[in-house]
C-alpha cells in the first residue's frame, strides 16, 4: 500500500514518519525539482507492506512554492513518475487543530481516501485539551486516530487503522473536485473548521506557559539577541574545542595505519600509493567527521526545539538592512556546516529575488570543509599565544576568518540589492512560531546518521578518486635514475602546477599550492590532503602529522596569510556550483557565483600578500 503524509509545518509530521519507519528511509529528490523526497517503509501488525512518503508541509493545496506544489500534485496523483497514494494521512498537532482541520476539509475535495491522526496527543492532554474523537470523526467524515510519535508503541492505533484501510482495498470511487479556493471560500472553510472544533474539542484557558516564559526572554529585543549570539558562540566553541580529542584520536589512528602499511610493505609504488595516496589523503578528510557531526547536531537540536523560527524573527529587520529576508537566516546558518544543504534550504523562501540573493551568498559562510585548511595553516603559522589574558590568538584568527566571511556576505547582498534586481518590493515575512518541544533524540539520531553517511560516502568516492589522481600526478613520470632533485619535481603535478603558478605568483602562491587548489575544486578540504601528498612525496616521509611543520619551513607567513584570505572566498567547490545550477535552473547564476567569488578571492589574497610583505612577513 502507498501512503502519503500531509500536514502543516510544525505538525510533527516528520517525527511521526520517523516513528513509523525508523531508519528504513530513502531520501532523494523529486524528478525535475530539488524538493527532498522522503520515503520510508514499514510493516503493519497484519504483515502488510506499506510505503509512506513524507510530503512537504503546507497550509493549503494552493501551491505557492515548489515544495507546496509537490504536495498538491502528489495528493492529486499528478506528480510525474509517482504512484497515486492509496491513502492520504493528514497529520495534526493536537494542541493546535484549527489550521489542520481547514487543510483536511480542503483535502476532502480531492476524493482521496483520507485519515486524520491527532499527533502529540499526550502534550494536548497535559495542557487540558480534550477531544471527542468519535464525534470529530463523524463530523469530518474521515477516520480519526491519536498518536504519540515520540513514545514507543505510540503509533499502535495508527497501525491498526492502516490495516483496516488496506483491508478494504476498494478502488477509489469519488471524483476529484478540488480547485484553488478563493479568499472567501477559504474563509468559509475556516469557519466550518472552527464550527467542528467548537463542537468536538474543548480548549483550556491556559496556553502553553512554558513557551510563553521562554519567549519572554528569547524574543526580547535585547535579551533575545544576546541569547542568539550565545548560542552561536557555544556552537563554534563546540565545533572547535570539544571535537578536538576525537579528531586527535582519529588522526593518530590513521597515522598508525599508515605506519603499519609503511612497515609491512616493501618500499615502492604500492607502499607509496597506500600510505601517501589513500590513507593520508582520505584520512586527513575523515578526521573532520566529529566537527561535522557537532555542527549538524546543534542545527538539528535548534530546529527540533523550535528555535529556528525565533532566530528568523529576531534577525528579520537586521538582515533586511542588508537586503536579506528573515527566512534566509536558517539556510545561511546551515551553510556553516555545508553550503549544499544551506542552498537547498532556501526553498522555504518563496520570493525568487530573496531566494537568489541567499543562494549567491550562502557559499561565503565558512563551511566545515574550510575548517581543515584553516586549522592546518593556523596551527603551522600562528603562535599559540594569549591575547589580553582572555583570548587565544589562534582562536581569534579563526573567529576573524568567520567574521570576514559573514561581513563579505552582507556586503555582497547589499551590492545585489542596489545594483541588480532593483525593481523589487520587500517580500512579506509571515511565519508560525511553534510551541517549544523537547527535541526527539530518535529523530536527531536519524538526522545525524544520514548526514554522517553522506559525508563518509563523499570521502569514500569523490575525495578518494581525487586523492588517487593527485598521487598519480605527483608520482609520475618517475624521476630518471640518479636524479638529484626530489622525485616530485619531475612529475606531471609539477608540470601543471608550474604552468599555473605564474598566475598565482602575485598573491604569493607557489606551484605546490597551485597543484593543491585544482583538486580542491572537487571538495575544498581536498586541498589539505593534496598538500600533504605533494609534500610527502617531495620529502619522502610521512605526511599527515608533519605537514604543518613542513609548511612552516617552506612558506613565508605572507603566503600563509594570503592562502587564508583566499579560502574565505574559495570559489572552488564543484558540488556547490552544481547545486546552484540546479536550484536556480540557470548556468548564468552559477557562472556569476564562480566569477564573483574568484574575483574576491584573488583581490583579498593580493591585498593580504602585499600588505604582509610590506610589513616584513615575507
Amino acid at each position: 500500500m502507498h501512503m502519503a503524509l500531509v500536514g502543516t509545518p510544525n505538525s510533527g509530521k516528520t517525527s511521526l514518519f520517523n516513528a513509523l519507519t525508523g531508519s528504513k528511509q530513502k531520501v532523494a529528490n523529486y524528478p525535475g525539482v530539488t524538493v527532498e523526497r522522503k520515503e520510508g517503509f514499514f510493516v503493519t501488525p497484519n504483515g502488510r507492506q506499506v510505503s509512506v512518503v513524507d510530503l512537504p508541509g503546507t497550509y493549503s493545496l494552493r501551491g505557492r512554492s515548489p515544495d507546496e506544489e509537490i504536495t498538491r500534485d502528489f495528493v492529486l496523483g499528478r506528480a510525474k513518475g509517482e504512484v497515486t497514494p492509496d491513502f492520504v494521512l493528514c497529520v495534526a498537532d493536537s494542541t493546535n487543530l484549527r489550521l489542520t482541520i481547514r487543510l483536511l476539509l480542503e483535502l476532502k475535495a480531492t476524493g482521496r481516501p483520507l485519515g486524520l491522526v491527532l499527533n502529540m496527543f499526550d502534550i494536548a492532554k497535559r495542557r487540558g485539551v480534550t477531544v471527542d474523537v468519535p464525534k470529530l470523526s463523524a463530523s469530518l467524515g474521515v477516520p480519526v486516530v491519536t498518536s504519540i510519535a515520540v513514545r514507543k508503541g505510540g503509533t499502535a492505533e495508527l497501525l491498526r487503522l492502516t490495516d483496516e484501510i488496506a483491508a478494504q482495498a476498494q478502488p477509489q470511487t469519488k471524483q476529484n473536485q478540488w480547485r484553488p479556493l478563493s479568499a472567501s471560500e477559504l474563509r468559509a472553510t475556516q469557519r466550518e473548521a472552527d464550527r467542528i472544533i467548537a463542537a468536538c474539542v474543548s480548549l483550556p484557558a491556559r496556553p502553553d506557559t512554558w513557551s510563553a516564559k521562554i519567549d519572554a526572554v528569547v524574543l526580547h529585543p535585547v535579551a533575545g539577541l544576546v541569547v542568539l549570539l550565545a548560542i552561536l558562540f557555544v556552537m563554534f566553541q563546540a565545533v572547535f574545542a570539544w571535537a578536538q580529542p576525537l579528531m586527535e584520536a582519529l588522526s593518530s589512528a590513521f597515522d598508525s595505519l599508515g605506519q603499519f602499511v609503511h612497515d609491512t610493505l616493501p618500499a615502492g609504488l604500492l607502499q607509496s600509493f597506500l600510505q601517501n595516496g589513500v590513507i593520508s589523503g582520505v584520512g586527513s578528510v575523515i578526521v573532520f567527521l566529529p566537527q561535522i557531526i557537532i555542527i549538524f547536531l546543534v542545527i538539528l537540536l535548534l530546529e527540533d526545539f523550535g528555535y529556528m523560527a525565533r532566530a528568523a524573527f529576531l534577525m528579520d529587520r537586521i538582515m533586511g538592512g542588508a537586503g536579506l529576508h528573515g527566512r534566509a537566516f536558517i539556510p545561511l546558518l546551515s551553510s556553516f556546516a555545508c553550503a549544499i544543504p544551506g542552498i537547498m534550504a532556501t526553498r522555504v523562501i518563496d520570493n525568487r529575488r530573496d531566494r537568489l540573493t541567499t543562494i549567491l551568498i550562502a557559499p561565503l559562510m565558512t563551511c566545515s570543509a574550510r575548517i581543515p585548511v584553516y586549522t592546518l595553516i593556523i596551527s603551522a603559522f600562528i603562535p599559540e599565544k594569549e591575547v589580553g589574558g582572555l583570548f587565544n590568538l589562534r582562536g581569534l584568527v579563526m573567529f576573524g576568518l568567520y567574521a570576514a566571511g559573514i561581513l563579505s556576505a552582507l556586503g555582497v547582498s547589499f551590492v545585489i540589492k542596489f545594483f541588480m534586481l532593483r525593481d523589487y518590493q520587500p517580500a512579506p515575512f509571515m511565519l508560525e512560531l511553534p510551541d517549544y518541544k523537547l527535541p526527539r533524540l530518535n529523530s536527531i539520531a536519524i538526522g545525524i546518521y544520514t548526514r554522517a553517511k553522506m559525508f563518509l560516502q563523499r570521502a569514500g568516492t569523490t575525495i578518494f578518486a581525487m586523492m588517487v589522481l593527485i598521487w598519480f600526478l605527483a608520482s609520475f613520470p618517475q624521476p630518471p635514475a640518479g636524479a638529484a632533485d626530489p622525485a616530485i619535481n619531475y612529475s606531471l603535478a609539477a608540470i601543471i602546477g608550474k604552468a599555473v603558478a605564474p598566475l598565482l605568483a602575485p598573491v604569493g602562491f607557489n606551484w605546490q599550492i597551485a597543484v593543491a587548489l585544482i583538486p580542491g575544486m572537487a571538495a575544498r578540504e581536498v586541498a589539505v590532503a593534496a598538500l600533504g601528498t605533494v609534500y610527502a612525496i617531495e620529502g619522502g616521509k610521512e605526511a599527515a602529522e608533519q605537514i604543518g611543520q613542513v609548511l612552516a619551513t617552506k612558506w613565508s607567513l605572507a603566503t600563509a596569510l594570503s592562502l587564508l584570505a583566499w579560502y574565505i572566498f574559495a570559489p572552488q567547490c564543484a558540488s556547490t556550483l552544481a547545486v546552484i545550477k540546479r536550484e536556480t535552473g540557470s548556468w548564468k547564476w552559477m557562472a556569476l557565483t564562480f566569477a564573483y567569488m574568484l574575483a574576491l578571492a584573488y583581490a583579498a589574497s593580493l591585498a593580504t600578500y602585499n600588505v604582509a610583505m610590506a610589513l616584513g612577513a615575507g
Partner: protein
Amino acid sequence: MTELHDIAQQLPSGLPSELPLGLAPRGYVGTIHRLAAGEAASALPHDELESRLIELGFVEGARVEILHEGILGRDPIAVRVDNVTIAIRRREAMAIIVG
C-alpha cells in the same frame, strides 16, 4: 514603520475602537473585525495576502494579542492568534483591522 507606531501613540485617549493591527503597540489585545488587504502596502496582490492571512488563522472574530516586537522599528511583531503564535511584519499587519 516606526512612524506608523508613533502615530498610534499620539492618538487621543489611547487607542481608537478600530485600528489596523500594524499600528497596535506591544501588549495590545483585541478581536479581528475584518481583513482589508487593500490597505496594506504589501508586495503581494490583495487576494494572495488575504488568503495567506486566513491560512495562518487571521479570520474575523479571532482573538489577537501582540506578544513581542523586533528591535529595529518595533518590527516584526509576534502575534498570538487564538492559540497559535505568528510572526508578521507591521506592513502586512496593516491589513488586519482589529478592535
